[in-house]
């Protein structure tokens, strides 16, 4: 059997999912990439047709399909709005794995996923080292968003205004910590996430302040790493699996009531993708993953629905006139249906919330999509930036560090005096 036929055979496992798409084309109305390019291969219907094509051995070489499949934010807008119920997101991730196994990972991804990301301790040291060199290569850009840009042409950096690595990553301040008060009734574990740990530790500090204030016992296991989504999205299931197994050992579901994260992407990965580790795994591990998944909550959702923080608006303080707008991260609203709680947290902090147009439109970040398709990512981001600025807000809040990075880049380039924060930071400031 020829190789391409073998590949076609591995796609037959997706047949029952692929056939659900009736090509109605409604996904065109919600796809942020299609809105920019107007090309069918960029929208779910086109990608699903291409995957059916691979299954029917229509192509001699899967490279072209793979490139087009990767030109996707994985924002899940198509899946969330598909009346036929095609789970395009799950199909795309499975297809990326099949293709990566067939074609191999690119050398750069191999180094990053297999030799850095999958080894949390090494990855942490590398990042600490990188932080030392940062001043040599970067230049401060905006005080408001805390962004920098590259001093000279650097690969991948482009003209980005990025949030630099923090001087002190969160895991340096809190290692193997259990924070508790005498009256703690709930015990939670915090999954920090790479971006919060290394770039936005202030979000994790805000979580600590909030939980201590509300007498919630907080466990922060040491040696945490990446949730695995970058590897999974690139089809590297081996690195993904090894990261998941690493974390299952750190987070024993018996030791806490809830696993909480302040990163929308980590929450959605732990809830939706960790349990789907594979069919041939140890049943005991499988059970643990299912337990972990069901115990995992976004911080906003945890504070509002479980911890029961007082939702009554605080007495207006000095910031009473400050207007806040909120951006719905795809991985919170579309993936997990969490959209009320972050807003409740913002108003509970005493601010007025002013909705922007299209608050649940993707910001265009999409992880590695931003690295490889920065032009499209920027045009999508600019729409978000315009909608944010149209509200006349002082601060934009959002529940995902990746969205924070993208929105900061867009606002900083525009010279806007708008802060970018996580709702939990706003809440912690009032305590």
């Amino acid at each position, binding site marked *: 059997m020829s190789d391409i036929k073998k590949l076609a055979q591995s796609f037959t496992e997706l047949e029952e999912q692929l*056939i*659900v798409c*009736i*090509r*109605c*084309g*409604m996904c*065109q*109305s919600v796809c942020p990439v299609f809105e920019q390019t*107007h*090309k*069918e*291969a960029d929208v779910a*219907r*086109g990608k699903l*047709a*291409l995957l059916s*094509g691979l299954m029917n051995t*229509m*192509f001699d070489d899967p490279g*072209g*399909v793979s*490139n*087009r499949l990767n030109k996707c934010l994985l924002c899940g807008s198509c899946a969330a709005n*598909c*009346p*036929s*119920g095609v789970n395009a997101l799950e199909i795309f991730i499975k297809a990326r794995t099949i293709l990566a196994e067939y074609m191999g990972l690119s050398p750069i991804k191999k180094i990053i996923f297999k030799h850095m990301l999958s080894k949390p301790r090494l990855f942490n040291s590398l990042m600490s080292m990188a932080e030392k060199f940062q001043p040599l290569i970067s230049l401060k850009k905006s005080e408001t968003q805390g962004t920098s840009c590259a001093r000279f042409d650097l690969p991948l950096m482009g003209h980005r205004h990025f949030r630099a690595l923090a001087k002190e990553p969160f895991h340096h301040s809190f290692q193997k910590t259990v924070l508790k008060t005498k009256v703690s009734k709930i015990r939670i574990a915090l999954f920090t996430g790479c971006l919060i740990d290394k770039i936005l530790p202030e979000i994790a500090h805000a979580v600590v302040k909030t939980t201590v204030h509300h007498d919630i016992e907080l466990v922060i296991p040491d040696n945490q790493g990446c949730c695995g989504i970058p590897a999974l999205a690139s089809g590297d299931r081996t690195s993904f699996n090894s990261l998941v197994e690493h974390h299952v050992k750190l987070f024993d579901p018996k030791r806490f009531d809830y696993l909480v994260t302040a990163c929308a992407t980590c929450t959605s990965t732990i809830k939706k993708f960790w349990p789907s580790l594979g069919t041939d795994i140890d049943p005991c591990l499988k059970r643990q993953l299912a337990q972990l998944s069901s115990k995992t909550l976004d911080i906003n959702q945890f504070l509002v629905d479980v911890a029961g923080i007082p939702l009554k608006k605080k007495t207006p303080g000095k910031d009473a006139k400050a207007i806040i707008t909120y951006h719905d991260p795809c991985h919170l609203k579309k993936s997990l249906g969490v959209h009320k709680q972050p807003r409740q947290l913002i108003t509970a902090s005493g601010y007025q919330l002013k909705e922007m147009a299209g608050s649940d439109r993707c910001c265009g970040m999409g992880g590695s999509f931003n690295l490889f398709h920065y032009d499209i990512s920027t045009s999508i981001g600019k729409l978000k930036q315009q909608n944010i600025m149209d509200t006349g807000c002082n601060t934009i809040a959002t529940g995902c560090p990746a969205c924070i990075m993208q929105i900061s880049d867009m606002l900083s380039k525009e010279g806007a005096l708008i802060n970018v924060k996580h709702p939990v930071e706003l809440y912690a400031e009032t305590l």
Partner: protein
Amino acid sequence: MKAAVLRNLKNILGKDHLLTEIEDRVTYSYDAAVLEPKTPSAVVMPKTREQVGQIVSLCHDYSIPITVRGSGTNLSGGTIPETDGIVLLTGCLNKIIEINEHDMYAIVQPGVVTAGLAAEVEKKGLFYPPDPGSQAVSTLGGNVAENAGGLRGLKYGVTKDYVMGMSFFDAQGNYVKTGSKTIKCATGYNLAGLMVGSEGTLGLIDEITLKLIPYPATRKSMVAVYDTIEQASETVSAIIAARIIPATLEILDNFTIRAVEDFSHAGLPVDAAALLLIEVDGHPVVVEEEGQKIKTLCKKLGVSTLKVASDDKERDRIWAARRSALSALAKLKPTLVLEDATVPRSRIPDMVNALQDVAKKYDLSIGTFGHAGDGNLHPTILTDKRNKKEWHRVEQAIEEIFDKALSMGGTLSGEHGTGLAKAPFLQKEIGLSSIEFSRRLRKAMDPKGILNPGKLTGVTPRV
């Protein structure tokens, strides 16, 4: 395709707007109709009028078939191309050129999305009523080419009732103007009328002038729940017989209700045998009076419950749910065949019965929803094309549905168009001499037969 043609296309468009790789071309081989896909030789995305004109002239010189495509939501195969032809995308021709509030018209490029125009004119207190089910993605160029209908056909008519004029390129690439911005216009042939519903076989639309009307002052939406589908369809006839013309009068059978509710969670009663979704609009006094009359009629014909939408939010939820019907039904089986055979509105109860008989006779799952008020039902056959035996029964059932509709004085298609899907059956409805007339007309306008061959008039000999 000849290298010279591709070179010329590249010169006209630049490399980013010409797609020749197989992985791109394959994604333009289908539309929303259940038909065999055909992969075109190239795909072009012109950005300007000049580019469109140049492309048409080039294709004319080399006798290359052109299929224009908006969002590819066609349900009769009208955008499935020829393998030796090109697909011309209107995605980059998507500007609203003018919305004139005083003279109440809009001028648009063909790639403008229907719901996008509707939203823009609504901001100015104006109304563009044609609202095909796919309006969130469908383009106005596509709507005009297919003479698209929608939920409001009953009171407000269909696309053809709103086209005041247009400009287009003929098959040789000559620029043609027809119609006007005026309400009345009696110069020349009514070519705009000919272009509406021509499915891309007579010319390539450049700009369209559309009529706008004042936005209705008030609206009232109702959901009427029935224990039998017969009672629901009799209510439809009774409302029309009472000389009331609602803006929308939609029917959903139990099958459809369950599928739609499963997706939309709009609060539809999943146990009901049938629902009528009714909306009246206009002057508040009239709306109130008509609303009352409809309530009385519904009660007389045995409605089990009748609910009036309390606010716009609830109303929008109901209509969004209805709009999802086609795609939501698709969840149930791998293949969905949506028909739109239409009958004179008084025959709706007969048609509903006929559909139930067909479903029983051929042992098929047929969901029925649609625009009952204008006689345009959408019997939806749920099947799996991979099951050859059942597929054969589906084909027989479709033909029988066509025969029933024609015997009641109806038509094969209310709004989806002839395309490839219905071309073989057209003779049943209009007779051979009518088809031959259309073919001669087409031949005169497109002597080489390059404009969307194979659609509408059946097989067209190409030169």
